[in-house]
């Protein structure tokens, strides 16, 4: 499950990562040797937010997902390169027509209460998600064109998923964490008391949850990938970023997310390793394409030319980011950098505005959500950058829910001109919900992007199973969208994290999931 939401989780929890080849200062990472591992080691992490519920099919917040990631496991997990790997399923195959997926499950898995894990648990989990009474937001992942995926138990350790039509993103959804049938059956899953003392199949067992203070997990000695090295993981709940950093410096935490402003100071501290890594997130300026001035492609391209991304990244992220030109992230396997780019060029911007019939510019209002400092700063900087080509951008800072209400209002046209916001992409490159014309006015194509070729390619992309073919399809999609510039893609943020040098077993170099991707391998030094 955390495989699906870990990107979001990272943003808030910000585990560490390895500094990529000296982009912003180099620092050698010294990890302790596994022979130094303390068999009674306890790792202390910070969740950064309150845990709401420890049931992977119900939770939707990053703190809950982080804890669930260590307690539960799914049929498939994703490695640091975002490639699927066997987990509860030893292997899987897909039928020639791409509709039937068969998963062969491990025989040696026990639930934390000692009961054996079987294909019935898998079926129960997916059927529960599909149950309309269960308040799971993941239901739409298992419904294709209005038809649910059917899960069939073929043998005690074999399960089949029958799809109404070929659907490539299904493999990612199949990695969903599995919940125990023998404990949930007959209870109301939404309010079950098990949601506060969960039983899973993952490397760590639930021990204690002190509301608002910490959650403690202990080693699962029967874990099927081998006994985890840590005796316990303590997840503290420290909502304030600065306080968490101080707690890290005081030795009360083993890891902390590092705000860009503190980066240089943190580098001087002893006994820590600092990591930096890319994520699946991008920030953009989106245009409401129903507005007359934004209807013209040349105006959008002009604004893209007017943006100095280097300045944005240097001022807002202190250099810890990279410029974005396409609606995909470089860490994704489906990324392609071969897209039309509109680098900073105010002269060209002015010329395009003139051609589009706005020689004296125009005025529009940009929405930005309150509390997100990066986006608030970006709005002010863009305001100045656009002023240089004669375009007046007003900034309206709004509370998150209020902004979503405007953006998600199911009506046409929507009542905003432009907005600065970000997407945290899923593991699968399928971007149907963001770009397909059917996803307007209800859906996440709230800017009303309509391109017949993109629509066709998006449909093709999700029904093609072969990865290499999909790569080509998505490269074309990114090219077409970048040409149209319905968003001005701004930047990819880079996560900076620090981990105490007593912690070993980290993934180097880390992928978007950070260095603690395999919790069973992590240890602390004696």
């Amino acid at each position, binding site marked *: 499950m955390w495989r699906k939401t870990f990107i979001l989780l990272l943003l808030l929890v910000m585990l560490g990562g390895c500094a990529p080849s000296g982009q912003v200062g180099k620092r050698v990472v010294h990890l302790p040797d596994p022979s130094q591992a303390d068999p009674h080691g306890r790792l202390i992490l910070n969740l950064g937010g309150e845990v709401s519920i420890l049931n992977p099919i119900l939770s939707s917040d990053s703190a809950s997902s982080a804890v669930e990631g260590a307690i539960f496991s799914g049929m498939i997990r994703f490695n640091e390169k975002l490639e699927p790997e066997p987990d509860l399923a030893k292997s899987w195959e897909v039928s020639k027509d791409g509709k039937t997926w068969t998963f062969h499950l491990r025989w040696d898995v026990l639930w934390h209460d000692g009961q054996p894990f079987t294909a019935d648990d898998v079926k129960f989990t997916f059927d529960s998600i599909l149950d309309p*009474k269960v308040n799971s937001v993941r239901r739409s992942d298992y419904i294709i064109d209005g038809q649910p995926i059917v899960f069939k138990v073929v043998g005690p350790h074999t399960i089949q998923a029958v799809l109404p039509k070929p659907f490539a993103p299904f493999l990612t959804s199949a990695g969903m964490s599995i919940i125990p049938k023998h404990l949930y059956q007959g209870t109301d899953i939404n309010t079950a008391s098990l949601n506060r003392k969960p039983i899973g199949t993952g490397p760590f067992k639930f021990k204690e949850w002190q509301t*608002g203070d*910490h959650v*403690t997990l202990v080693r699962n000695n029967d874990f099927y990938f081998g006994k985890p090295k840590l005796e316990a993981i303590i997840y503290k709940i420290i909502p304030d970023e600065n*306080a968490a950093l101080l707690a890290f410096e*005081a030795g009360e935490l083993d890891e902390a997310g590092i705000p860009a402003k503190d980066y240089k100071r943190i580098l001087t501290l002893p006994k820590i390793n600092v990591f930096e890594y890319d994520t699946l997130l991008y920030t953009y300026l989106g245009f409401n394409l129903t507005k007359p001035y934004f209807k013209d492609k040349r105006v959008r391209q002009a604004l893209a030319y007017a943006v100095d991304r280097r300045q944005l990244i240097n001022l807002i992220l202190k250099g810890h980011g990279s410029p974005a030109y396409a609606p995909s992230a470089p860490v994704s396997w489906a990324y392609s950098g071969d897209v039309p780019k509109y680098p900073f060029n105010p002269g060209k911007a002015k010329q395009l505005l003139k051609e589009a019939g706005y020689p004296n510019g125009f005025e529009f209002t940009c929405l930005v959500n309150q509390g997100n400092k990066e986006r608030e700063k970006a709005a002010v900087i863009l305001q100045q950058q656009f002023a240089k080509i004669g375009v007046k951008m007003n900034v309206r800072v709004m509370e998150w829910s209020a902004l*979503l209400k405007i953006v998600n209002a199911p009506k046409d046209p929507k009542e905003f001109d432009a907005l600065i916001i970000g997407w945290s992409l899923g593991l699968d490159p399928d971007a149907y919900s963001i770009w397909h014309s059917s996803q307007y006015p209800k*859906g996440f194509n709230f800017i009303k992007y309509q391109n017949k070729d993109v629509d066709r390619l998006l449909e093709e992309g999700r029904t093609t199973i072969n990865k290499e073919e999909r790569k080509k399809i998505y490269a074309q999609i990114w090219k077409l969208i970048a040409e149209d510039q319905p968003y001005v893609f701004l930047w990819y943020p880079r996560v900076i994290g620090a981990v105490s040098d007593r912690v070993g077993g980290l993934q180097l170099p880390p992928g978007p999931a950070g260095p603690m991707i395999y919790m069973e391998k992590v240890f602390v030094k004696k």
Partner: protein
Amino acid sequence: MTKYLFKRLLQLIPLLIGISLISFFVIHLAPGDPTNLFTTPNVKPEELARIRANFGLDKPVIIQYFYWLVNILKGNFGTDLLTGRPVVIEILERLPATLLLTGSAYILTFLLAIPLGVLSAVKKNSWFDKSVTLFSFAGMATPSFWLALILMLVFAVKLDWLPAVGMYTFTLKDSPWFIRAWDVCLHLILPVTTMTLVSLAGLTRYQRAAMLEILNKDYIRTARAKGLPERVVIFKHALRNALIPIVTIFGLSLPDIFGGAFIIETVFGWPGMGRLGVQAVFQRNYPLIMGIVMFSAFLIIIGNLLADLLYAWVDPRIRLGEKKQ
């Protein structure tokens, strides 16, 4: 007196219903709903609509209020929409931590503010009064989150005397109770100090002003003219009267003590009510917000009642519930 108390308690009922009605509508006026939190590109709007319907949020607000009220009358405060747990349990779970933190801070504040205020009034314009004034203004001007971080930096990071965040040390989980109690005390020091320093200022000024006003009264002059010792004049004649406004403040701050301190709790990772409440609002977690609102409303009313009763006790001129002769 009993009759008066009974009457006041009876007034609670229409008052609480009125408060609940207004708050219920106001929180539903705020844009968004609990499903906003689920907004990611993979979640279809119809799924959000289904979950809203499961929560009963698709019905008109007036109907929702009616259901809520009926449940309350049955003693059911509803279920937290995100955790699926009863609201009452969520509130009661946070209460001890909050009472410990804000309770200690308030007691400390009153214990310090009253003597400081009285002394600076008595020794008006002395160096003592001036330094208390300076300190008070500095305290009022200091943002609590900043002070909290500075204290943390000095006492937890640099000196390493005290724990920086949280309420417990998890390693002491299985230790005897007195070690755990001592551990909680250590964790309390920084947040309580921060809260006290920040709220001390205002109250000290208040007490000083109240005392000064009384000291200028005729009966104080009379007492002094009678040749009473200054000690008696200050403590017996002046202080008792100067405490009256402070009693009001004490009564009015009762809801704060129960409501928690959001900023302090957030910075120190303290598991209190303040964090619960603010989070509930951001999540639009209606049953939880209503639970907290009703709880605070009840406390405000009780606090006011308590202040009135204390008034009568401190000031014999006030007679509650009796018609003027």
